[in-house]
Structures are given as structure tokens and as C-alpha cells.
């Protein structure tokens, strides 16, 4: 009798636990789906607006069902500086990523492998370049660039984009190099390779995922930057962010084209983000969170 009693007690307890778990699961997914909706709805709205026929983009009540048209995109490509700005951004941001990797990755390697005096202070100094508000940085460069004829040039913008991402690259890559056992290079050196060869042929290939992800994250941070373009360009080197902004500045906003330009800017970055999904936490946390 006693056993049956305790059996039924556990059974009802288990039932309790099951219902509780079901409730937890339902609540959990309700919250997560709500947030999913919050994430997706603005993007859906932007994209749908860019695909609506002219004149109906902002009609209320909204046309939930409409015949999508690429009219806005064709307008965008044809009669404005969008293509130039998009290409500008693509070139300037890509060049800055290559440059920041060339400067940052070797330095990160040294910081990882050698005993640097006051290493922590050096690392905090490097991080402090990110603490400087861009507006405070851009003000002197605005004056200097005009003197050096770097104002409104792609080269000038590339240099400024490097300044945003250098600390990120050094920190993330130092963390990645720390995770690569030194025995790898030692083996190569025993085989007669110089230190540089060891770095280039052994360490760099092993650090590929880190380099790839930090490159993409650097790309994104430069791609979304507005202030440098606003202050340091006027015509030749205008980045796509400034082009999008210039829509807002104009008196009668063409909502459809604005939506199309914004959508065109966002889509490639979404693909990039998903591509580095696995290493995103490592990259965004400056290499502090490496394992997942």
C-alpha cells in the first residue's frame, strides 16, 4: 500500500512538473516570437515600401496586398548618385579593411607571442582609441585634411575607417593567436623556417576564421558610419550612409526611393552577419568571449 501511495504521489508531482514545463515553454516562445516580430516587422515594412508602386508607398490604411514593382530601384539606379555612393562605400570600406588587417594582425601577433613591457597598459591604450568620440577625432582631421588635400578623398576616408577598427582587430586577433599553440611555430622553426615564415605559413592559416570574422565585423562598423562622411566629404567620396541621409535633408522626401536605398544598404550586411554568425560573439566582445 505504501508503495502505491508514494507512486501516485510521484506521478502527480511529475504531472505537475510536466504542466509547469509546458507553461514555461509556451511563455518562452511567446516572448521570443514577440521579439522576432519586433525585429522583423520594421525590416519587412521597409522592404515592402521599397517595392510599392509610386504614390502608394505611404497610403493609410496600408495596402497590405500589392503588386511589387522594382520601380523605386530603377529610379534609384538611374537618376541619382546612389550607384556612385554605393560603389564609393564598397571601395573605401573594403580598402580600409585590408589596411586595418595589414596593420593590426602582425601587431596582435607580437602582443600575443612576446613579453611586452606594460602589456595591459598597451592594450588599454589601444582600446582607448575606441573611447575617443568620433566627433572629437574628426574635428582636427577636418582641418588637417583640408591642408593636406585629403578632404573629400577616398584615401582620407579609408584612413578614418581604419581608425574605427584598429583596436578591434588588435584585440580580437591577439585573443585568436593566444588560442593557437606556440608549438606549431616551434615545429616550423625546427624545420628551418624563419619566424616570419612561421607566422605566414603556420600561424596565419590557423587564425583564418578569426581574420575572416574580424574582417567582416570591421567592414560592418565602417559601412554603417555616417559622421566621417558627413564631415570629411562633399561630393567625390560620399559614402552610402551620407547618401541615405541626404534624402532626409531634401524637402519632399521620396519615401519609396528612400526605402529602396536603405534596403539596398542593409541586405548585404545581413548576409555578412549570418556568414560570421559562429564567430560573432568572439569578434564583438573584442576577443574576450572566444569559446562557444
Amino acid at each position: 500500500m505504501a508503495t502505491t501511495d508514494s507512486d501516485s504521489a510521484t506521478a502527480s508531482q511529475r504531472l505537475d512538473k510536466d504542466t509547469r514545463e509546458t507553461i514555461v515553454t509556451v511563455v518562452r516562445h511567446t516572448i521570443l516570437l514577440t521579439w522576432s516580430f519586433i525585429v522583423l516587422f520594421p525590416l519587412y515594412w521597409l522592404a515592402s515600401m521599397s517595392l510599392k508602386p509610386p504614390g502608394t508607398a505611404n497610403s493609410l490604411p496600408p495596402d497590405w496586398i500589392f503588386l511589387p514593382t522594382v520601380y523605386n530601384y530603377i529610379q534609384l539606379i538611374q537618376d541619382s548618385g546612389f550607384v556612385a555612393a554605393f560603389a564609393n562605400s564598397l571601395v573605401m570600406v573594403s580598402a580600409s579593411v585590408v589596411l586595418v588587417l595589414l596593420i593590426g594582425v602582425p601587431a596582435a601577433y607580437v602582443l600575443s607571442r612576446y613579453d611586452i613591457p606594460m602589456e595591459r597598459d598597451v592594450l588599454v591604450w589601444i582600446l582607448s582609441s575606441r573611447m575617443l568620440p568620433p566627433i572629437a577625432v574628426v574635428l582636427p582631421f577636418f582641418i588637417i585634411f583640408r591642408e593636406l588635400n585629403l578632404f573629400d578623398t577616398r584615401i582620407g576616408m579609408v584612413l578614418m575607417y581604419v581608425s574605427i577598427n584598429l583596436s578591434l582587430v588588435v584585440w580580437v586577433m591577439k585573443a585568436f593567436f593566444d588560442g593557437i599553440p606556440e608549438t606549431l611555430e616551434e615545429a616550423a622553426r625546427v624545420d628551418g623556417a624563419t619566424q616570419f615564415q612561421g607566422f605566414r605559413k603556420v600561424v596565419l592559416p590557423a587564425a583564418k576564421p578569426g581574420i575572416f570574422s574580424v574582417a567582416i565585423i570591421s567592414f560592418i562598423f565602417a559601412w554603417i558610419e555616417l559622421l566621417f562622411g558627413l564631415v570629411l566629404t562633399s561630393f567625390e567620396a560620399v559614402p552610402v550612409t551620407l547618401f541615405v541621409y541626404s534624402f532626409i535633408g531634401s524637402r519632399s522626401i521620396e519615401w519609396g526611393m528612400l526605402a529602396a536605398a536603405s534596403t539596398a544598404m542593409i541586405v548585404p550586411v545581413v548576409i555578412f552577419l549570418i556568414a560570421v554568425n559562429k564567430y560573432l560573439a568572439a569578434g564583438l566582445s573584442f576577443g574576450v568571449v572566444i569559446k562557444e
Partner: protein
Amino acid sequence: MSTPTQTETAPKSTFARLRDLWNDYLPYWFMAPMVLVMIMITFFPGAYDLYLSLIAEPTLDVFAADFVGLRNFETAFTRGGAIHSFVITITVVVSALLLETILGFVLAALVAGVGSDRAKSFYRVLFIIPMAVAPVSLATIGRIMLNSEIGIIPYVINTGTPFVAPNFLSDVPLLTVILLDAWNWTPFMFIIFYAGLSSVPKTLIEASRVDGAPMWRRYVHVIIPYMKPVVFVATLIRLIDLFRTFGVVYGLTGGGPGTATQLVSINIYEQMFINNQITVAAAIAVVYLVLVVALCNVIIAKVGFEGVWD
């Protein structure tokens, strides 16, 4: 592989000597460009801002410069609206940081607890997407969706609920800015916290589960203490980046209406290009730069990176 630096009795060619120089001093060559660029982007702007802030008219010729002491600072803080913009900045930074930290953690904890792996990675990928939106594009989305005449959100509130929608851009502009930033950057906190949560040892969680502790106590007493370094780093980096905020506000309200959303960065920009007072702008920039760098360094010194780097 043959050794490239064989000892030879013959005098070395210039190329060989250069190669030796490269190999012998490799760490210096590797560090030099980074250090040079770092000096250029840290010490130079700070020093130049300071110089500009102390003179009457911007000039490159230090000897011809007319030093006016702290007059630009006085102008900035009495008539330049500097104090107001610092208050606005602190309000935005603190509220957005709190909101993003809490939301990011809750979302990370909820996703980490999802049973099926496919659902987990679905949420994980979906939730990072807002980071792809440039602040200035987010501002355009805000202008489109929140516009009191053509915006879908006021329309839905007015027709679908008993409430009357405020004019988001003029009645509650600061709140709108904070919410938009939270939409944009909560993913940043989420993804770092999620990685941190995944690195909490299973045994630690199991042990606390055996104790019969309820879920919230497991978080407060076991998981959050374990994740302290991760939480510290994520909030520190987000704090640093929040002080850089510009695009979303500039695109959404331009600092207005009036000066209701005038961040320090917007104030400096307007002093520069609208009022054409570069030296006053530089004075505000110096104060801003010193305060932000000092604050972040104090936080780093106080909390330290213990348990992060070791």
C-alpha cells in the same frame, strides 16, 4: 626546407642584409605601423582639440595663434548649451545601456533554454539582424514608421487601440531615440551573453538544479556570478560605443525638436558647421573626450580584466 640564412664567408648582398634586418627585428616591424597609427588617432586629435580650444581663430600656425585661455570653454558652457547636451547624452547612454543589457540577457537566457537545436539557431540568427542596419537607415525607418501622418505605428495605435499615439518625434523624442538604439544594439548584448551562457559548465548548472533551487535563484547565485567577466566586457564595450552615438539621432531628429535630443556629439557638430565656431566646438570636444576616456579607464581600473585575460 633549406635554411635561408646560411652562414657565408662572402660579404652579404644588400638584399641579404635587409632580410636579416627584417628577421632580426621582426617584432618591431610588426608593431611599428600599429603604434604609429595609434599615436595618430589618439594623441594627435586630443592634443589638437586642446590646442584649438585655447585659441581665438583656427590656424595651423602655432606661433601666430591668439591664445585666449579658457574663453572658449566659458562660451561653450554658458551659451553653447554644453551642460544641457551632457545631461542628454548621459540620459541616453544610461537608459539605453540598462535597457539593452537587461533585454539582451533575458533574450539570451530564454534562447539558451530552448529545447530544439533548430529553433535555437533560428532565434540566434534572427536576433542578430538589427545590427546590420546602419543607425542612419534606422533613423529613416523611424521616420517612415513613426511619422504622425503617414506612419504605420501611430496609425495602428490610433485605430486599433483605445490609446492616442503621441507624436514620437516631437512629444517623446528622447524615448524614441533610446528605443530605436535598443532595437539596433540589443543584439550585440544578446549574442555575447548567449555565448557566455553557453560557456557556463553544465556541471555547475546540474549541481544547482539538484539543490532544488528555483530558476531565478540559479541565475542570481550561480550563473550570473560565473558570467561576471562576460557581462563586464559586453557592457563596457557597449558603453564605449554608446558615447559614439550620432547617426541615429542626427537622422531622426537632428538634435531637435529644439535641443531636446541634442547629444554632445550633435552639439559639437552644430557648433562646427552651423555656428561656425570651431574653437568652441573643440572646447566641448576636449571636455567630452577627457570625461569619456577617464570614465572608461576608471571602470577598467576598478573592475579590472581579471578573469577575462587569464
